[in-house]
């Protein structure tokens, strides 16, 4: 294992202290009988301990077991709104691109904060302040649509949009209607081309890997003035990262991200040729934390370099998700100075699910 420098070791310890402090604050908040979240207050009634007294840091979250995303299906959705925020304007976002009963996550300002943090990590050369944006990705009841718009506004820009419904894409794939899928993709791309050609001020964009590929078949993004691309929404591997940098958008600031409605946004390690295009993501600690665990024994954290299942914890005053076992796997990556906590490398669908789940469709 690589030895951390003394400076980095100190930073790691400090970030851990911030994480533990965040855990204490968030647990106190959500389990507070007067101001807390109805779901968690009711949950605590079934426990034989008081979380506010017993949970003193991240490791103690084990006492709560694992968050089950099935709890997010159906209503009443207000059971997820902390009483202290009952009079705030509430957003509800849906996860995933499937057509089953959607999973909901409430939000107030979290997505603003997450994307403001992300904005701080972007370079002004690749994502110039004041430049306009194109959001070419899933819209509808998804957090991403509003989040990217807020990101653009945070950086002084205006965000243009193209409608894209990933559930329809999923349905076409399930039905084996590939020609229709191609036509829908062309419909989406044609709209994006019109916007890009009509609005010279657009220099930044969000898009998904597949839409980026499709767009680049029709246009040179560098030539139309795109300087930075924030890419996400579905899984990306090292080969895609290399292909994007070498062939799709050479010369453009390409920022792959990993995120979801439950966690927010994990940023990637700055590009380094030594990584051989592997994408290494770091969660927004202390607002969220990712631990990689043994798929057969989720109580065991895997070693650095070892493959593990993604276990996600979200720790904000709006939303508390302790130790949720995602359907992804990755290799555990070492902390770095920019992100002095564990990262995840080569995130992909769990091997055991790879034949049964439609992913990365848009």
């Amino acid at each position, binding site marked *: 294992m690589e030895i951390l420098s003394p400076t980095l070791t100190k930073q790691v310890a400090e970030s851990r202290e911030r994480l533990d402090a965040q855990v204490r604050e968030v647990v106190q908040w959500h389990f507070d009988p007067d101001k807390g979240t109805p779901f968690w207050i009711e949950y605590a009634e079934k426990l034989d301990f008081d979380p506010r007294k017993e949970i003193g840091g991240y490791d103690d979250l084990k006492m709560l077991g694992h968050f089950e995303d099935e709890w997010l299906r159906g209503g009443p959705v207000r059971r997820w709104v902390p009483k202290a925020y009952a009079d705030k304007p509430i957003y509800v976002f849906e996860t995933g691109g499937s057509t089953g009963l959607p999973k909901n996550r409430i939000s107030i300002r979290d997505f603003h904060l997450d994307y403001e943090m992300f904005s701080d990590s972007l370079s002004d050369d690749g994502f110039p302040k004041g430049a306009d944006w194109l959001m070419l990705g899933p819209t509808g009841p998804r957090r991403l649509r509003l989040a990217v718009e807020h990101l653009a506004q945070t950086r002084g820009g205006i965000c243009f949009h193209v409608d894209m419904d990933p559930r329809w894409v999923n349905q076409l794939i399930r039905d084996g209607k590939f020609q229709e899928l191609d036509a829908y993709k062309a419909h989406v791309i044609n709209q994006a081309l019109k916007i890009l050609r009509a609005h010279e001020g657009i220099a930044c964009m969000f898009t998904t890997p597949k839409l980026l*590929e499709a767009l680049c078949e029709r246009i040179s993004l560098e030539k139309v003035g795109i300087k930075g691309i924030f890419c996400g929404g579905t899984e990306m*591997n090292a*080969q895609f990262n290399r292909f994007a940098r070498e*062939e799709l958008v050479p010369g453009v600031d390409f920022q792959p991200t990993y995120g979801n409605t439950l966690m927010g946004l994990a940023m990637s390690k700055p590009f380094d040729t030594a990584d*051989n295009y592997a994408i290494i993501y770091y969660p927004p600690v202390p607002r969220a934390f990712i631990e990689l665990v043994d798929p057969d024994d989720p109580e065991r954290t895997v070693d650095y370099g070892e493959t593990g299942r993604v276990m996600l914890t979200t720790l904000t005053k709006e939303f508390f998700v302790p130790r949720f076992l995602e359907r992804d796997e990755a290799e555990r990556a070492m902390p770095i100075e920019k992100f002095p906590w564990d990262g995840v490398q080569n995130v992909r669908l769990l091997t055991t699910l790879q034949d049964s789940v439609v992913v990365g469709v848009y």
Partner: protein
Amino acid sequence: MIHIPVLRAGKPYRSLSVNRIPHVETGQPFAEVSQANRGLIARDLLDVRKSKRALEALTVAELLAICKRAATLFMEAELPIGDATQSPEDYVTQTSATTGLPQTLVRRNMDKVRLNMDEMEAILGGLTRGLDLSILDFGWGVQDNRRLSYAVEANALGAILPSNSPGVHSLWIPAIALKVPVVLKPGSGDPWTPFRIVQALIEAGCPREAFNYYPCAYDGATEILLRTERSMLFGGASTVKAWENDHRVQIHGPGWSKVVIGDDRADSWEDYLDLIAESVAANGGRSCINASGVWTTRHGRELADALAVKLAQIQARPLDHPDAEIAAFANPKVAERISDMIDSQLKTPGATDLTLKHRGTPRFAQLGECGFLNPTVIWCDDPTHSLANTELLFPFVSVVEAPQEEMLERMGSSLVVTALTDDQSFIRDLLASPHVDRLNLGAIPTNRISWDQPHEGNLFEHLYRQRAFQATA
């Protein structure tokens, strides 16, 4: 470990995504195959016109000469594979190792591919029904006092290929001689055969730009089918279903090939036992042209029993055994599941496995790490039984009894029908049936292919359209 690269317009490309294919005998990774991402394929295909121009610079006669040289090279030469080279013997052992096909059968298939390239002129003669091929060089010409012109319909032929039998690759090779570049997605178990064919053709003088070779996942295959104006798709019923109504895609799905004995010959069933056994079991029973059904009007039970005695002599053997005749499954659990599925369907009355009692050993056999399925003959006294029309990836056949007048209706579609009858009325019905693709009249095993008689669609007609043409001079 051997590494097989992607070929982008003939240029090797090492991907950061690789698929490690296991050796069927050890289960350990044996070769590493670069995987093309979907966008890479789509991007390359934007430039496929350039590849076509490279082939157009050669005459058909020159391309036929290249095919002939490639036939020898494929059979005898040390050819490039990734950073290494591959001898003919390497090819045999490597293909056997990842497909489970016995080495003897790989060699036989190797010769089929050689013959295909060597006899390309005769094959094009069959595909074009004797067209003066120079017409394809000049765009038009005069033959039998008629002006003829042909327009090519595609800048490239896409081919989503299987792993079941190397001989099947003979079907796309004529595209090169017909001046159409190829975009190949090899089957995950047999990346070797198409790669070696491509290398032999390049070594023989074919422009390397004519070859795109993309090992990839399903989304890459979809991209190939969407982006190439003409393609061929090999796969099971569920795979090909989505493309059945797309005229650009030539479907090579399950064969459900059959031997049919007319009422006039039903009493002579013993004369056809060898023919039926070959039709069922040749090439390990893995081809779509292997018979999976024998339909007769009477003596079905006796025929099935005698066939079971004959096929029960074929037993699982190590892949390098000179007498090995059946293939190992790359994943033994798949073989077990297939066997369980057959047993489960046998619980429905109307079908009986007659091979078990003659062989004395179970259908599923394990030799070391390899799983095999021994030949299986099912006697179906109920022609509507689910096993009466089932095709599986090993020598599996159902013998079904039905009145002659009901046979064609009940049989469903068949890639190959060998009809044993002199009944002219029945022959007329067979000739008129839209459910019979290739028809063999007389004692010709279903697996015997005459290359000048294309089945499952004619590649020339798939790639070219006859154009109305007039000229003043």
